[in-house]
C-alpha cells in the first residue's frame, strides 16, 4: 500500500499542486451543484455560450495589464452582463432562443480572441484563458473561489424549493405567485458566477463539461434530486482530483485531464445503468 500512498502524496510536496487540488475540488462541487439544474432544464448550450462570452471581458482586463485578481472581476462583470442579456433576449422572441444565444456566443468569443491577439506574444495567455491554468492558482485566488463558490452552494440550498418548482413546473410557480422572473435571473446569475469561479481551473472552452457532465452522470444513477445533487458534487470533485493527478503523472494538460475524467465517469454511469436495465 505504501507505493499508492506515495503516489498520492508525492505531488503534494509542491505547494502549487496543493493549491491546484483545492481549486479543482471546489470547482467540482460548485459546478455540479448549479449544473444539476442546468441538466434538468436543458441549459447545456446556455452554459457553453455563457462561458465563451466571458472571454472579451477577461481580455480587456488582460490588455489593461491587470493582475490575476482583477481578471476575476472583469470576468465576473462580463458574466453577469451577458447572462442578464441572454435572459432578456430570450424573452424578446423575434429570434429563437438558441439562435440568439449562438449569435451572441460566437460574436463575443471572436471579440475576445481579437482583443487578445493584439498582444504580440498572445498564444500562451490565450491558451490559459481557453483551457485553464490550474497550477497557476494563487492563495488569494483560492480565497475568492472559496467565498463565491460558497455563496453559490448556500444560495442553491436556501432557495432549494423555489428552484425545484421553477424547474419542474414553471406554471405552478406562477400560480403560487412566486417571483418567477427573479428566480430565473438568480439562476442565470449563479451559473455566471460558477463559471467565473472555475475559469482558472478548466478555462472557457471546457467549462460546459464541468457544469453538465457530473450532473448528467448522477442523473443516470438516481431518481431523487437531493441525491442527484450530492452525487454530482462528489463526481465533480473526484474528477477534479483524479484529473489533476493524471495530468501530473502522464504529463497532459490539466483542464483536459479533468474533463476526460468527468467523461469517463459518465461512460461508467451509462454502462452501469445499461447493464442494470438488461438484468432487471
Amino acid at each position, binding site marked *: 500500500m505504501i507505493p499508492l500512498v506515495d503516489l498520492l502524496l508525492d505531488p503534494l510536496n509542491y505547494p502549487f499542486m496543493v493549491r491546484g487540488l483545492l481549486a479543482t475540488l471546489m470547482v467540482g462541487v460548485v459546478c455540479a451543484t448549479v449544473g444539476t439544474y442546468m441538466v434538468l432544464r436543458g441549459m447545456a448550450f446556455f452554459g457553453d455560450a455563457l462561458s465563451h462570452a466571458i472571454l472579451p471581458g477577461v481580455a480587456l482586463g488582460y490588455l489593461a495589464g491587470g493582475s490575476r485578481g482583477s481578471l476575476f472581476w472583469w470576468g465576473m462583470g462580463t458574466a453577469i452582463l451577458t447572462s442578464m442579456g441572454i435572459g432578456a433576449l430570450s424573452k424578446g422572441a423575434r429570434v429563437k432562443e438558441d439562435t440568439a444565444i449562438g449569435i451572441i456566443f460566437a460574436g463575443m468569443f471572436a471579440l475576445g480572441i481579437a482583443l487578445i491577439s493584439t498582444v504580440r506574444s498572445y498564444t500562451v495567455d490565450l491558451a490559459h484563458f481557453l483551457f485553464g491554468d490550474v497550477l497557476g492558482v494563487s492563495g488569494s485566488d483560492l480565497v475568492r473561489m472559496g467565498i463565491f463558490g460558497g455563496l453559490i452552494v448556500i444560495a442553491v440550498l436556501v432557495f432549494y424549493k423555489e428552484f425545484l418548482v421553477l424547474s419542474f413546473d414553471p406554471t405552478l410557480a*406562477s400560480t403560487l405567485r412566486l417571483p418567477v422572473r427573479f428566480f430565473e435571473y438568480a439562476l442565470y446569475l449563479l451559473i455566471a458566477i460558477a463559471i467565473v469561479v472555475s475559469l482558472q481551473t478548466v478555462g472557457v472552452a471546457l467549462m460546459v463539461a464541468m457544469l453538465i457532465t457530473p450532473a448528467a452522470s448522477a442523473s443516470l444513477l438516481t*431518481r431523487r434530486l437531493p441525491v442527484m445533487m450530492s452525487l454530482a458534487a462528489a463526481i465533480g470533485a473526484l474528477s477534479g482530483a483524479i484529473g489533476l493527478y493524471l495530468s501530473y503523472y502522464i504529463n497532459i494538460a490539466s483542464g483536459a485531464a479533468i474533463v476526460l475524467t468527468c467523461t469517463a465517469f459518465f461512460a461508467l454511469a451509462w454502462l452501469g445503468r445499461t447493464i442494470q436495465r438488461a438484468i432487471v
Partner: protein
Amino acid sequence: MIAKRLHKTGLIPQHAVHQPGSPLLELCAVSLRYNGRVALEAVSFQVNNGQRVAVVGPNGAGKSTLFKVIAGLLPATSGEVKVSGAGPGGHICIAYVPQRSQVDWEFPVVVNDVVMMGRIGKLGLLRWPRARDWDYVHHALEVVGLSHLANRQIGELSGGEQQRMFIARALAQEAELMLMDEPLTGLDLPSQEGIFEILDGLGQQGVTVLIAMHDLKLATDRFEQVMLLNRRLIGYGKPTDIFTPERLVAAYGGHLHLVGAGDELLALSDTCCDEATG
C-alpha cells in the same frame, strides 16, 4: 415599511382577499389576442362555489388559453376576470393541473415531493416544510388513494395515478378553484371512474372544478354544467340544453359526426384524438 417595499418588488407576493358574497369565478367580456390572432372573444360566465363544469370544444378552441387567463398566467386583452371578487393575479387558491403530455416525467422527484410543491405558496421564502405541511401532504395523498405510492418516482405511475397526484397537489395547495387541462385524455375507463369519484368528494367540500375535455358523452353523463367553447362562448348550462345540433355545429363546424337516434343525439367523434392539443 420594509414589508411594503418588499411587496412592491414582488419578492414577497401579497395575496388577494376573498370578498364574501361574490361568485367564486366571474368572467366579464374577456377577450384575448396574441400575434393578431383572436384566441378568446368576449367570453362571459359565472361559476359558483363547488360547481363542476366541463369545458368542451374542438382543438384550438381556446380551452387551455381560457384556463391560463383564469389562473392569471396570461393577461386578458380586454374584459375582466374575478376570482372571489378580485383579479386572479393575487390568488394562491387557483390550481392549474397541466396536461400529462406537458410534464417531464423523468424529473428526479417522487410523489411526495410533487405534492409538497403545492405547499410552497403558503410556506413563503426561506422556510422549510414543517410537520403541519407534511400533514397536508399525507392527507391529500390519502384522499386520492396514493398513500402507498408516496415514495415512487413519478415516471413509474400509471396515467390515472399521475392525474391523481396532481389533484393531491392541488389539495395540498388548499385550492378552491381547480383548472384541469384534459385530465381524462388517454385514461382507461376505471381510471376515469377513479378520478370522478375523487372529484365528487371535492365538490362536496366546496372546491370548484373546471375540466377541459373532448368526450361529449362523458360531459353529458357526469356533469350538471357544461360549457361549449370555440373562441366565443357558444353555450353554458345543462348538457341537454347545450349539446344541441345547432350549437354543436357552431362549435365544431363540419368536423363532428352527429347521429340522430330518436330524441337522442349521438356525437360519434370529433376530429381530436391525440394527446398533444393546443
